[in-house]
C-alpha cells in the first residue's frame, strides 16, 4: 500500500474536487454524499472568498491610484483625516457605482421608476448573454482536454456568416432569425473545427492554432467589411447594413430595456450543454477523453474524433454567442462586434470550472462587473480596466485554492489546483 499511497498522500480529498468536473449520475448515498457536500461547500466558500479578495485588492488599486487620495496624501501629516475620508469617498463611491450599475439603481427604485431602476440589471444580462454562451465555447473543449483560446476568432468568423444571412436574405420573421443564428453556429463550428482537425490529424497544439486563427478571422472580417457585398451602401467605413427586424432577437421588456430574447437562448444553451455532457454517450466520451485520453483510446473511443466534435460544439457555441450581439444588441456587423468577449470567455469558463451551470453564474458575474464597471467609469472616473483586473484576480485565486485558504486561515477542504489543459506533448 505504502508505495501507492506515497505518491498521493491525500487521495480522497484530491479526487473529490475533481468530481465537480465529472459528476456521477445520481447523488451518492451515505457518507460519501456528506463528504461531497462539505467539499462542495468548501469550494463555494473558496469561490466566494476569491471574489472578496479580488475586490479588496481592486479596492486598494482604486484607492492608491485615485487623484483625490493622492492629493490628500500629499498633506497627510497635516491633516491625516483628509486622506482617510478621501479613501472612503473614493472606495465607497466606486463600489457603490459598481453595484448600482450592475444590479439595481437604488435612487430610481425609491422613486418607483422601475424601468430606470432595473436598467442596470438589464444591462448586466445583456452583456452576460454572449459571455455565457462564449464561456460554453471554451468550457466544452476544456472537458475534452482542449484549451480553446479561439472563441474570439470563432465568433469573428461566425459574425461574417450569420451577419450576411441576417441582412442580405429576405425571409419571414422567426425563420430568418433562425437561419441567421444557425449560419453563425455553422461558421463558428467550422472555424473551431479547423483547430480540432489539425489537433487530431497532426497533433498541432490547439493553443497555438486557435490563436493564429483568431488573427486570421480578424483580418478576414476586416476584408469582408470592405467588400461591396458586405459593406453598407454609401458608407466608406467598415460597417454592414442594419439587420431587419425579421432577423433580430425581440426585446424582452420593451424598448427602454436592452435585454433581449438572446438571453433565453443562452439559458437553453446552458441546459442543452449540461444535458449533453452529463446524460449522453457523447458527453461521456468527451469527459473520458479529457480526463484520460489514453484510457479513452484503450476503451475503444476515437480520441481524435472526440476532439473534433468537442471543438465543433464549442465553435457552434461561439457562433451562437456572437448572434447575441449581431442579431441582438448591435443589429449590425462591425469590426468591433465581438469586442473582447472571446477572451473574457476564457476567464468565464475557468471561473465556472468548465461546467455549464458554473459558466452561467460566472458569465452573469462578469457581465454584472462589466455593466457596473461602465457606470463606475462614467460616475467616478475609475477606468473600466479595473474589471479586467478583478476578473483575472478572481480566476487566479480560484485556481489556487491553497492560496485563498492560507490568506483566510481556513483548514480542510481540497488544495487540488485547477488543472484542465495539457502540456505540449499531449
Amino acid at each position: 500500500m505504502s508505495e501507492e499511497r506515497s505518491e498521493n498522500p491525500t487521495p480522497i480529498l484530491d479526487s473529490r474536487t475533481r468530481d465537480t468536473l465529472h459528476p456521477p449520475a445520481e447523488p451518492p448515498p451515505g457518507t460519501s454524499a456528506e463528504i461531497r457536500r462539505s467539499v462542495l461547500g468548501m469550494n463555494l466558500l473558496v469561490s466566494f472568498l476569491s471574489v472578496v479578495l479580488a475586490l479588496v485588492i481592486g479596492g486598494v488599486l482604486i484607492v492608491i491610484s485615485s487623484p483625490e487620495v493622492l492629493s490628500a496624501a500629499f498633506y497627510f501629516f497635516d491633516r491625516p483625516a483628509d486622506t482617510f475620508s478621501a479613501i472612503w469617498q473614493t472606495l465607497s463611491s466606486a463600489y457603490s457605482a459598481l453595484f448600482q450599475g450592475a444590479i439595481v439603481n437604488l435612487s430610481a427604485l425609491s422613486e418607483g421608476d422601475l424601468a430606470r431602476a432595473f436598467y442596470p440589471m438589464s444591462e448586466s444580462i445583456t452583456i452576460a448573454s454572449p459571455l455565457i454562451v462564449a464561456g460554453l465555447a471554451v468550457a466544452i473543449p476544456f472537458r475534452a482536454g482542449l484549451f480553446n483560446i479561439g472563441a474570439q476568432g470563432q465568433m469573428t468568423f461566425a459574425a461574417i456568416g450569420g451577419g450576411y444571412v441576417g441582412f442580405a436574405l429576405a425571409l419571414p420573421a422567426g425563420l430568418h432569425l433562425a437561419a441567421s443564428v444557425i449560419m453563425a453556429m455553422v461558421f463558428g463550428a467550422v472555424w473551431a473545427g479547423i483547430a480540432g482537425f489539425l489537433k487530431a490529424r497532426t497533433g498541432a497544439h490547439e493553443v497555438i492554432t486557435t490563436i493564429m486563427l483568431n488573427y486570421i478571422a480578424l483580418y478576414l472580417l476586416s476584408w469582408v467589411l470592405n467588400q461591396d457585398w458586405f459593406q453598407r451602401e454609401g458608407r466608406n467605413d467598415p460597417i454592414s447594413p442594419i439587420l431587419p427586424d425579421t432577423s433580430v432577437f425581440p426585446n424582452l421588456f420593451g424598448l427602454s430595456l436592452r435585454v433581449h430574447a438572446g438571453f433565453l437562448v443562452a439559458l437553453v444553451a446552458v441546459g442543452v450543454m449540461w444535458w449533453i455532457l452529463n446524460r449522453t454517450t457523447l458527453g461521456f466520451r468527451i469527459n473520458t477523453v479529457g480526463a484520460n485520453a489514453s484510457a479513452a483510446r484503450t476503451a475503444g473511443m476515437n480520441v481524435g474524433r472526440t476532439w473534433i466534435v468537442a471543438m465543433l460544439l464549442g465553435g457552434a457555441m461561439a457562433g451562437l454567442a456572437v448572434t447575441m450581439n449581431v442579431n441582438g444588441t448591435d443589429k449590425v456587423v462591425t469590426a468591433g462586434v465581438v469586442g473582447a468577449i472571446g477572451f473574457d470567455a476564457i476567464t468565464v469558463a475557468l471561473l465556472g470550472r468548465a461546467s455549464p451551470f458554473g459558466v452561467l453564474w460566472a458569465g452573469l458575474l462578469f457581465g454584472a462587473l462589466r455593466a457596473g464597471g461602465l457606470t463606475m467609469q462614467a460616475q467616478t472616473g475609475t477606468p473600466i480596466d479595473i474589471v479586467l483586473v478583478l476578473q483575472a484576480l478572481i480566476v487566479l485565486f480560484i485556481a489556487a485554492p491553497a492560496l485563498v485558504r492560507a490568506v483566510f486561515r481556513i483548514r480542510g477542504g481540497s488544495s487540488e489546483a485547477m488543472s484542465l489543459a495539457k502540456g505540449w506533448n499531449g
Partner: protein
Amino acid sequence: MSAAMTAVPEAPAIAPVSPRRPLAMVAIAVFLGGLFTWLAPAGQVTTFIFNLGQQFFEIPDWSVNSRTAAAAFALIAVLAALAAWPLHMRRRSVLWPSAIMGAALIMSFLSWVASDESLPVTGLLQGSLLLAVPLVFGAMAGVLCERSGVININIEGQLLAGAFMGAVIGSLTVNVYLGLLAAPLAGALIGVLLATFATRYFVDQVVVGVVLNVLVIGLTGFLYSRFLSEDPDRWNNPPRLPNITIPVLSEIPVVGPVMFEQNLIVYLMYVTVILVQLGLFSTRWGLRVRAVGEHPDAAASVGIRVNSVRFRTVVLGAAVAGLGGAFFTLGSVGAFGREMTAGNGFIALAAVIFGRWTPLGSLGAALLFGFAYNLQNVLSIIGSPIPSQFLLMAPYLVTLIAVVGLVGKVRAPAADGIPFRKSA
C-alpha cells in the same frame, strides 16, 4: 555459452521511409513557383535595391524582367525541393534545402508583387530585424521557461509589462537607461507571479499564463487611463534610445545597415541569444535547467531543488521578455499605448515551438515572422496586387502552416507543463 547455441538474428531496426514529405515539398514548390511565374507580368521590370546609406562599396541595383525572375527563383525552389528528396530518404536533415526553397519562393513572390516597382531589399531586412526584436526576446523567454519545464503562455503579458514600465520609468526619470533597467524588472515581477502559481500552488501553467495576460492588460490599461493619458508629458514621454553605429561593421553592404546601425536593445538581443545558447548547453546552470525540464525526478534524486530552479529560470525568462517589451516604447515609438504588444507574445511562443525549443531555432523562426510582418509594411508602401488584409494575415498563416507542418517531428522538453510535487 556453448557453441551449440544460436543467437536470434538482430532485428533490422529501421522502418521504410515514406516519401510524403519531399513529395509535398516538390508539390508546393511547383505550385507556388508556377503561380508566381504565371501572375508576374512578362513585360515589366522588378528592381531590387540593395543600398542604404554609405558603405564600403555599393551593390548596383538589380533590374530584371519580372516573369523571368519569378521563373528563375521558382526553378531554384523546385531544385531545392528535389535535392531534399534523397536526403530525406537517407534520413538526413532537410533543413537547408527547405530553407533555400523557402527563400527562393519568397524571391519569386517578390518578383511578382514588386513588378514595375523598386523593392528596397536592405530596408526590408532592416525593418524585419527591428520587428523581430520583441519576438526574439519573447522567444528566448519562452525557451528558458519551457526548458525548465514551465509553459510560458504569459510572454505577451511580460512584454507588455516591460513596455509599460520602461516607458513610465523612462518618462519619470527622463533617463532612457533607467527605463531600460525597469523593463526587465517589471517582466520579472510578472514572472514571479507565474512561477509562484506554477511551482508553489501547482496551478495549470497554461491557465495561469492566460489569466496573468488578462491581469497585465487590465493593470496597464487601468494605470494608463489613470496616469499616462491624464498627464502624458510627465508619465508617458520617455526619451528614445539613440541608434549606435558600430564602426567598420556597419560599413559592410547590406549586413552593416541591417545589423549594426541599431539601438542598444538590438545589440542586447544579440548578446541575449548568445548567452541563452551558451548558458543552456555549455554550463552547469543550463545542464540543471534542462534536467529539471526533462526529468525532474532525476534532478531531485541528485539533490537539485527542482521547483526553485524552475522558479529562478521562469523569473529570468520573464525578465528577458520584459527587456524585449522595452523595445516597443524606448526602442521605437517612445510612448506607451494600450495593449501595444498586439499579440507579439503569442507569435514569440509559436517561434519557440517552430524553433524546436532551441535558442537558435527560435531566433530563426522569430526573424522569419519579423520578415513576414515587414513585408506587409513594405508592400503596402510600394503598392501590391494583394489586399492589405491578406498581407496582414500572412505572419499568422505562416505560423499556422509552420506549426502544423512541423509538429510530430518536434519534441517539447519531456516535463514541460507538468508540475513537480515531491512525493510527500
